[in-house]
């Protein structure tokens, strides 16, 4: 049973929408004020930044508190550790419930307490199974998955449901199986969740805060990531054995059938996701499908065994820019600048705020070397001027 009533969730959902419509000029301020007055709840909310700070400090206190208990009690046996973790977990859960009774809603405090409670109980369960290294991990992950679902059903935190799904999919990687079986088992976990979410048919306007769209998008992405076997080595310098079982003695080889299956799936999954997303106008699914398409374009050469060239990124850039411009022109050439309801125009103010946030964040990705590190005139030309957000006008950038 949820700690918040459906009416409260609906009121908060609609109050946020009214604020957004007002900021976008669709409602005037007096209308917005009078409607918001009808949507009042006694729940206490806070600003997003303060919520993050509440999250941080609650986590800090909880973790330091558990560590302090361990320092004072000095446990030696696994069972003693398990008792400390499980007791602390219960205390955190009780405090999270208490915070909700005090009508905190997405305040950071109750969220951190609930999440840490699940982390602690998972550690406790893992300690109980510490006799077998393999089952210790499996039991801990299984408990974390159950805990994530419990948080979702009790408190409604969508990210807990997504995390639970990811943790469930990590369990096969702890088992003594071949690479293909592990990846397929993990992908099956994501797919089962995906199918059940779609089958539930609850992604309607009425299910306030259900977060099923986010879970579905996460399941699509998870399935894709499990089946794209070239991703890790393309994007990161990750050794081949990194994702594989610690119980295997040598670096495993990918079977041909799985290689071909994987290659087919990295094209089919984004296409299917995009088609479904566009058909139902589900933004998260559309965005995730675009991301999957980009990853497919980046990794496809590896599947084909072709050599990567320096100019591949330029070609990708041209493809992306051209796609954006062609889609915009096509949409704008439709009646009223729309086609099937899709428009390239900005309809809500929040879109502009998101772009402003990205523009500020882009300054964090400074590609050029700072002048302080350069004592001599550089003689070695190095790229970097485009990874993002920097002028690159150094001799060594």
């Amino acid at each position, binding site marked *: 049973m949820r700690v918040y009533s459906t009416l409260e969730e609906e009121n908060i959902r609609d109050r946020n929408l009214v604020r957004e419509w007002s900021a976008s000029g669709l409602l005037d301020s007096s209308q917005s004020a009078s409607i918001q007055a009808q949507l009042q709840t006694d729940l*206490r909310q806070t600003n997003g930044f303060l919520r993050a700070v509440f999250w941080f400090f609650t986590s800090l*206190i909880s973790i330091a508190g558990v560590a302090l208990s361990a320092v004072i009690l000095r446990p030696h046996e696994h069972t003693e550790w398990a008792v400390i973790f499980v007791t602390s977990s219960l205390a955190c859960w009780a405090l999270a419930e208490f915070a909700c009774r005090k009508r905190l809603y997405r305040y950071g405090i109750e969220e951190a307490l609930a999440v840490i409670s699940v982390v602690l109980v998972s550690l406790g369960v893992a300690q109980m199974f510490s006799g077998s290294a393999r089952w210790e991990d499996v039991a801990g992950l299984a408990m974390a998955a159950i805990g994530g679902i419990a948080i979702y059903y009790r408190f409604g935190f969508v990210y807990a449901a997504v995390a639970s799904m990811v943790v469930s999919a990590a369990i096969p990687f702890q088992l003594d199986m071949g690479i293909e079986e592990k990846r397929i088992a993990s992908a099956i976990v994501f797919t089962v969740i995906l199918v059940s979410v779609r089958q539930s048919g609850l992604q309607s306007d*009425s299910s306030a805060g259900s977060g099923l769209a986010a879970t579905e998008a996460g399941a699509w992405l998870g399935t894709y990531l499990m089946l794209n076997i070239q991703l890790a080595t393309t994007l990161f310098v990750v050794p081949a054995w990194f994702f594989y079982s610690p119980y295997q003695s040598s670096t495993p080889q990918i079977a041909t059938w799985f290689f071909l299956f994987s290659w087919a799936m990295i094209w089919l999954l984004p296409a299917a996701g995009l088609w479904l997303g566009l058909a139902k106008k589900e933004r998260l699914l559309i965005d995730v499908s675009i991301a999957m398409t980009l990853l497919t374009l980046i990794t496809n050469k590896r599947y084909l065994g072709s050599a990567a060239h320096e100019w591949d990124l330029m070609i990708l850039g041209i493809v992306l820019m051209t796609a*954006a411009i062609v889609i915009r022109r096509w949409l704008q050439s439709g009646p009223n600048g729309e086609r099937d309801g899709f428009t390239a125009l900005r309809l809500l103010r929040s879109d502009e705020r998101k772009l402003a946030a990205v523009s500020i964040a882009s300054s964090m990705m400074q590609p050029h070397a700072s*002048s302080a590190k350069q004592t001599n005139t550089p003689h070695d030309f190095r790229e970097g001027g485009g990874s993002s957000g920097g002028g690159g006008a150094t001799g*060594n950038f």
Partner: protein
Amino acid sequence: MTTLERLENWRRSGAIREEQYKTISALVRKERFSVFLELNALLYLGVLSFVAGAGWTVRTYFAHLGDAAIVIPLTILIGASFYYCFSRVKPYSNLQVESPNLGFDYILYLGCLLLGVELGYLETRLHLLNSQWDYYLLFSALVFFASAYRFDNRFVLSLALSTLAAWFGIKTSRFEFFELSAVRISAIAYGVIVIIAGFFLQRAGIKKHFLETYLHIATNVLLAALVSGVGEKASGFYLPIALAAAAITFWGGLRYRRFAFVAYGIIYGYIIISIQILSARMGDTLILTYFVISGAIVLLGMILLARRIGRTA
């Protein structure tokens, strides 16, 4: 009750007008669906990918291709980008100016990034400024600032600020406190200058909407530099300044209801105080007790603060 049912109720009760109901309900039913953000994301990623590829290609092949084969195409692309922007730009205004089209901002961004690539290449090959090569950074920053203001482009403004930071010797991509100590004075100078410039331009009424970009970047650089100073042995000088800076950031955020700055003030302030207290020799029990008690104090203070300000943003 669904949002649509509520909209219907508000229409019936006269809380919203008929045309408002039609517009909003079309959005709720997803009869109108904007892909504005997705198209922007594609353009942004496209520009980054293209410039990264251009830089990589130039680095790998400059010895084989020759200077002309690199400089001429880059110059043509930069020229074409700026020509496009100047030919379509709306008249300058101190107020926010809407871009003529979706791709406009990104074409300017592309031109600016490619300018950075070309200047870096020219300096590497020709050594025109030799040991003074870093003035290329200053020149680039000035060009980017001018472009950001002329074309009202926040991406280019961020580029200008990060390029200026590089000229000051700061790497904004990573706030590494220990590395920052080597350029602390420069970082503090950068932070102060950027904050003053931001406020000056805002008070002069020039692109007021740019102020937050200035403040976010400069505040983080300034506070990180001061925190790195507090961590050193002779921190008597930096401690009061760092605390004052964190307090001012907190107060300013509260005063102008910009809660990101409230968060900066709290987090940096906590780090400053924690560094000072934990620099004394303590056992594990005392350190953990400190975190529990200090965290609880901050949490209680914030709860009281949040009650006072209510749910605004």
